């Protein structure tokens, strides 16, 4: 009885969200009284497995054949199913990234199990582990139990501080399996090129909302972001208007972030946006409408038009 952590790789690199999942596995391991293994599948899997052997896992499995070289839910799901079947894991977890959200329900379907999305914590219950997860755009925290044979879950990255290399020496083993007919092919990534840090890794985020108005306003937010070394985010309204790409969207249906400093520019604070940023350590809101709900979650609010206040802020922090 133990835990399987599914690492996330893209283009031979380990995604940092994996360290939060390892941290979550350690918390769950304390509650459930068991250890954990890791599966690193994808091109460069062996190197990533080597990179992960100091994090306290029993065994780090890797697979890097042609079928799993690039991620597809079909291939990686079939591989994970084979490993779970082989080793009899009681718990399987991955990050609640777009990849984890794609993969884990498929794995649950393959195993004929239920699963829990966006786990933020767990505790010991009467019959097993009780998981905590947000629902209704973060306006409720649900306590949930699963009664199947395997507890599958995605883990919210921001709820667990990344695990550190503790100098352990996990075993590293290759694991391959017959994946059957896949019916799906990865074609290519079209990654958004940016010199700024990514939203989920940045310690400072500056986000644009409808009050930023236009391309000129967006350019000002970008300048502020560069001056602060910050990632840029946006509300759904700005994404819908086509002013920024969708992967900058912060909110219930976009990225969930929790930086040290979150600056909301011209963002009204709709429920679905607040769901994505309310766990930030310090929140600043600049909005000309003093009734805007964003001020209810802000530590520091400035009632002002963004075009003017943003330009002044840029001068003051230079």
């Amino acid at each position, binding site marked *: 009885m133990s835990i399987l952590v599914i690492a996330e790789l*893209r283009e031979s690199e380990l995604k940092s969200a994996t360290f939060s999942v390892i941290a979550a596995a350690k918390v769950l391991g304390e509650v459930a009284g068991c250890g954990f293994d890791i599966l690193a599948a994808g091109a460069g899997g062996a190197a990533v497995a080597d990179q992960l052997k100091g994090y306290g896992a029993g065994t780090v499995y890797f697979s890097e054949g042609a079928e799993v070289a690039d991620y597809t*839910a079909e291939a990686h799901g079939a591989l994970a199913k084979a490993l779970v079947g082989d080793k009899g894991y009681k718990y399987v977890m991955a990050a609640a990234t*777009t990849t984890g*959200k*794609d993969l*884990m*329900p*498929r794995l*649950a*379907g393959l195993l*004929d199990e*239920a*699963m829990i*999305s966006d786990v933020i914590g767990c505790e010991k219950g009467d019959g097993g582990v*009780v998981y905590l997860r947000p*629902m*209704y*755009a973060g306006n*409720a*925290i*649900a306590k*949930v*139990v*699963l*009664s199947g044979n395997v507890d599958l879950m995605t883990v919210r990255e921001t709820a667990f501080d990344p695990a550190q290399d503790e100098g352990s020496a996990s075993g590293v083993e290759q694991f391959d399996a017959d994946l059957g007919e*896949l*019916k*799906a*092919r*990865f*074609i290519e*990534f*079209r990654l*958004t090129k940016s010199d700024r840090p990514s939203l*989920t890794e940045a310690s400072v985020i500056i986000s644009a909302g409808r009050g930023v108005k236009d391309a000129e306003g967006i350019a000002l937010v970008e300048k502020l972001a560069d001056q602060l070394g910050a990632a840029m985010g946006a509300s*759904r309204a700005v*994404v*819908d208007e086509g002013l920024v*790409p*969708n*992967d900058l969207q912060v909110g*219930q*249906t976009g990225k969930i972030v929790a930086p040290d400093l979150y600056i909301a520019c011209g963002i009204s604070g709709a*429920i*679905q946006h607040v769901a994505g940023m309310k766990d930030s350590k*310090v*929140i*600043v809101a600049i909005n000309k409408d*003093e009734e805007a709900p964003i*001020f209810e*979650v*802000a*530590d*520091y*609010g*400035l*009632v002002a038009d963004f075009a003017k206040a943003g330009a002044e*802020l840029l001068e*003051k*922090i230079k």
Partner: protein
Amino acid sequence: MKILVPVRRVPNPDVKVRLMKDGSGIDTEGVNFLLNPFDEFAIEQAAQIVESSEGEVVLVSVGGADCEETLRAGLAVGGTRGWLVETDATLDSADVATLLAAVYKEESPDLVIAGKQSVDTDNNQAAQMLAAKLGLPQACFAYKVELGDGKATVEREIDGGLEVKEVDLPAVITADLRLNQPRYAALPQIMKAKRKEIKKSSPAELGVELASRTKVLGLIEPEARAAGQIVGSVDELVEKLKNEAKVL
């Protein structure tokens, strides 16, 4: 082409939910329910595909009798006919996927298009589970869908950009925000939707026994943030961020 589109009834996502005092659920008194916003993108995509060739868009909803209203809303914006799998049981995504798989087997569609997640539970699970249960490929969080000869090329919204994936048909696709611009329901369409066929079945009639392996023990309020302060100027803001919050 026959396209199956699962639709869900959700509490209005723009209204902040209130929890029942005993934490047993949300207080639905006075809350209006809508078609899940992501499902509108799915219906629109299916409708556009069917309009440019031929075929039908079959909407299926799983839940209580009220879901008929949700189906009618979908039938007014592109659905051809509906199917309600009626049950008052508390369902998890695995149950929903099992029921949808049973409907899929009856309908044998060429494609399934679903919304990427329902905005109440935020599970983002049922479509992927459905694909797995049926042995179909999946293309989640679609930004663009192009249908070719027996296959679909889908651009997917992923962390950091877009991914292009090709899947053999039939497949399960889930819709993300930028896939299309859903149409508004025009009055004649709303009137027409009232007369469209909605088939009703129970889980038992579909031969499904619900497993219900997910149990919500209760809901609690998230920790509220401490009250903040309003600053009078950009100078004051910068000063406080530097010296009080120490984040600059």
